C-alpha cells in the first residue's frame, strides 16, 4: 500500500511535503500511475464544495439528469455510463477559489511532473446515482502516440485528481484502479492483474496518470455519489474527447480577472474558453464592409472588451525589468497574449 500516503498536519499547514514523503510519493506515482493522498483538504473545505455542488446540481435527481443529458448541445451534462453523469461545474464560490484550484500540496507535486507551465484542463463533477453499475475498465485518454511501444514509455502528460465530496465506502462505490496500468500498451492486460479499490474519506484525493486503467464501482448505497475531478495537463495537451459539446472549464471572465496573478497562467484555458464564447458575436466576414476608420465607440451592448483586456492573462508584472528570463515561445509576460518573441522580446 505504498501508494496511499497520509498528509501530516504539518505538511497540510505548510503546504509542502516533507522531502522523504515527497520522494516516496513520486516513486509510487511513477510505479503505479496512481497515489491516494489522505487529508489534503480539510473537511470544512470539502463540505463547502459539497454545498456549492448541491446549490448547482442538488435539485437534479437521476430522472432530471437523464432528461438534461438528452438535450441538444451545448450541454454541460454528459452521461458516462449507467446512472452516472459528468457535469461541468460553474467555477463559482469555492470552485473558483485558488486554494482549491491551485492547492499548494498538489501543485508542488504536479509541477515537476507536468512542467512549470502546466494547465488546468477541466473541472467537472461525476455523480453516480444509486443503482449505477460498474463501469468498463477505461483510460481517461489513450496513449499519445500509437506507434508500438512508444506511448507507455513516455512521461505522464496529464493527471486526473479525484476529490470525493462525501465519504465513499465500498457500498457507495469509489473508483477501482489497475495499478501500473499506465504502462500497459493494451487494455486487454487488465485480465492479467487485479483491480484495487479502497474506501474514500472526505479530504482524500486520488491522483491518476491519465493513462491509468480504472472503473467506477457500482453504487449500491442510497446516496448519490459526487466526486470532483480536476485534470491538470501539459501545456500542449488538450482533452477534447471527454468534453464533447461543452466547455470543460466554466469561469466567468469577471471571476478570472479576480484571480491572483500567479495562478492565472495555470487557469488560462478558463479565460480562453470564455473569450471564445464571445467569438461569434462579431461577423468577421463583414469586416471589409465596416471600413475600420473612423473607429466606432464600442456599443453598450458589448461591454466585454474592457473586461477582457483587464482580464488579460499571464501578466506577471508591468515592469519588464522584473520578468527574468522568458522563453521566446512563451506568452509575453505583459499579458498581450502574443509570444514573447513577437512582443517585448522582439528587440531584446
Amino acid at each position, binding site marked *: 500500500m505504498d501508494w496511499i500516503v497520509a498528509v501530516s498536519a504539518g505538511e497540510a499547514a505548510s503546504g509542502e511535503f516533507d522531502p522523504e514523503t515527497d520522494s516516496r510519493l513520486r516513486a509510487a506515482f511513477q510505479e503505479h500511475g496512481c497515489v491516494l493522498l489522505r487529508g489534503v483538504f480539510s473537511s470544512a473545505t470539502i463540505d463547502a464544495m459539497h454545498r456549492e455542488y448541491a446549490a*448547482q*446540481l442538488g*435539485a*437534479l435527481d437521476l430522472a*432530471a439528469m437523464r432528461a*438534461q443529458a438528452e*438535450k*441538444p*448541445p*451545448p450541454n*454541460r*451534462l454528459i452521461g458516462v455510463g449507467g446512472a452516472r453523469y459528468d457535469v*461541468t461545474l460553474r467555477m463559482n464560490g469555492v470552485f473558483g477559489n485558488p486554494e482549491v484550484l491551485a492547492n499548494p500540496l498538489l501543485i508542488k507535486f504536479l509541477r515537476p511532473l507536468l*512542467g512549470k507551465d502546466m*494547465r488546468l484542463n477541466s473541472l467537472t463533477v461525476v455523480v453516480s446515482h444509486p443503482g449505477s453499475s460498474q463501469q468498463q475498465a477505461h483510460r481517461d*485518454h489513450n496513449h*499519445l*502516440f*500509437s506507434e508500438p511501444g*512508444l506511448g507507455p514509455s513516455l*512521461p505522464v502528460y496529464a493527471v486526473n485528481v479525484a476529490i470525493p465530496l462525501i465519504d465513499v465506502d465500498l457500498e457507495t462505490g469509489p473508483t477501482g484502479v489497475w495499478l501500473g496500468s499506465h504502462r500497459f500498451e493494451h487494455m486487454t492486460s487488465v485480465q492479467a492483474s487485479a483491480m484495487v479499490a479502497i474506501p474514500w474519506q472526505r479530504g482524500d484525493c486520488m491522483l491518476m496518470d491519465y493513462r491509468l486503467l480504472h472503473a467506477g464501482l457500482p453504487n449500491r448505497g442510497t446516496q448519490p455519489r459526487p466526486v470532483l475531478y480536476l485534470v491538470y495537463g*501539459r501545456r*500542449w*495537451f*488538450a*482533452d*477534447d474527447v471527454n468534453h*464533447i*459539446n*461543452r466547455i470543460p472549464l*466554466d469561469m466567468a471572465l469577471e471571476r478570472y480577472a479576480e484571480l491572483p496573478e500567479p495562478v492565472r497562467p495555470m487557469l488560462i*484555458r478558463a*479565460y*480562453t*474558453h470564455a*473569450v*471564445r*464564447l*464571445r*467569438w*461569434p*458575436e*462579431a461577423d*468577421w466576414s463583414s*469586416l*471589409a464592409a465596416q*471600413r*475600420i*476608420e473612423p473607429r466606432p465607440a464600442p456599443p453598450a451592448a458589448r461591454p466585454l*472588451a*474592457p473586461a*477582457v483586456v483587464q482580464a488579460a492573462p499571464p501578466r506577471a508584472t508591468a515592469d519588464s525589468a522584473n520578468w527574468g528570463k522568458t*522563453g521566446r*515561445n512563451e*506568452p509575453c509576460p505583459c499579458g498581450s*497574449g*502574443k509570444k514573447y*518573441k*513577437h512582443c517585448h522580446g*522582439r528587440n531584446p
Partner: protein
Amino acid sequence: MHHGRMTTAALQLEYPLSEWVIAPSAEERARGQFSPERLREAHAAFRQHGCLLLRGALPVSLIDDMRAEFDARYGVLGFSGMMEQSRRPPPNPVDPRGEARFEITMRMSGAFARPEGFANPLLRGILAPLLGGDMQLNSFSIVVSYPGAAMQQIHRDHGHLFASEPDIGPNLPVYAVNVGVPLIDVDLEIGPTGVWPTSHRWAPNVEADPAAVSVCPIKRGDCILIDYRTLHTGMPNRSAQVRPILYMVYARGWFSDEATHFGVNSPDMPLEEYDKIPEAARKPLLYRALSQAVRSPRGAPEREARAPRAGLNPADPASWGKVGRNDACPCGSGKKYKQCHGRSA
C-alpha cells in the same frame, strides 16, 4: 544529426531541393491519390527533412477563389486598417506577427470551406499516416505580409514536447504539420517560407545559420508541409505586392497550440457551413472545428442546469414570456432564440 552550424555549400550538397520536392503526376492529381512508390518517397523525404514541397497538389481555380474571397473580406482594410484591427481587444481574428505581417483566422465559409482545400485527398493521403487516425485540422489562418516586411525571426511553430527531458522531443514522431498554401505566386522577391531541413530533429539549443536557409519560389497550387518542430522563417517581402499565405495546421487530436492561437477560435467554421460538408471530410478532421462551434454559437453554454422554469412549456411559445435574443430558444432546438422562434418576432 547536425550539431552547430552548416554552411550554405554543405546544405546545397546535402539537401538539393529535389529531395524534398514532390510533384504529383496529372493522373495522381486526377485520382486524388499518390502511387504507392511516390507516397513512400514523400513520407521518407518528410521524415528525413521535416518538410516537403508538393507541386500542384491543389487546384489553381480554388486558390484563385480563396484569394478573391480574402481580398473581398480583408483586402480593403489595407495595411493601416489591418494594424488598427489587430490592436482591438479579443476576440479578434487579426493578430500581428512582427512588423508588416499579420495572422488572420479565416472564417471557413465559401471557398475556404471547400473540401478540396482543407480536406484535399492528396494532402490527407500524405498526412494521415503521419499523424494517426485522430488527425484533426488544428487551425486555419492566413498570414499576410505587406511590402517592406522584414525577414522573420527563425523559429519553430512549437517547441519540442516534454521539454524538461531533452532527449525525448527530437526523437518523437511528428505531432503536427503546418501546411502553407500561397494564394499568389510567390517568387523570391515577394518572399516564400524558408526552411532549415532536418532541424525538426535538432536539440533546442542548436542554432540555424541564416545563410543556410533552403528556399524556392512557390506557385499557386503548390503547398509546403512543415513539421511543427522544423526551423523556418518568412522571407522579407521586397516586392510591391501583398503576400497572403494560407496556413492549415493538421495535428494529432490532443495537440493544443495555445501560444500561437491564444484566445482565438481556430479553425473557425460556423455550424451552418459544417452541416454542408460531406461526411467523408468531417470527422475526425473537423472535430475541433465542430467542437468549438457547438460550444459557442448557440449561446453561452446552457447556464441553467436545473429543471426548466416553472410554467414554461417548450411546445407553447405563449408560455415563454420574455426571451433574450441570444438565449437558447426555449423550444429546445439548441439554436439561439433569434435564429429560431425569435426570427419572426
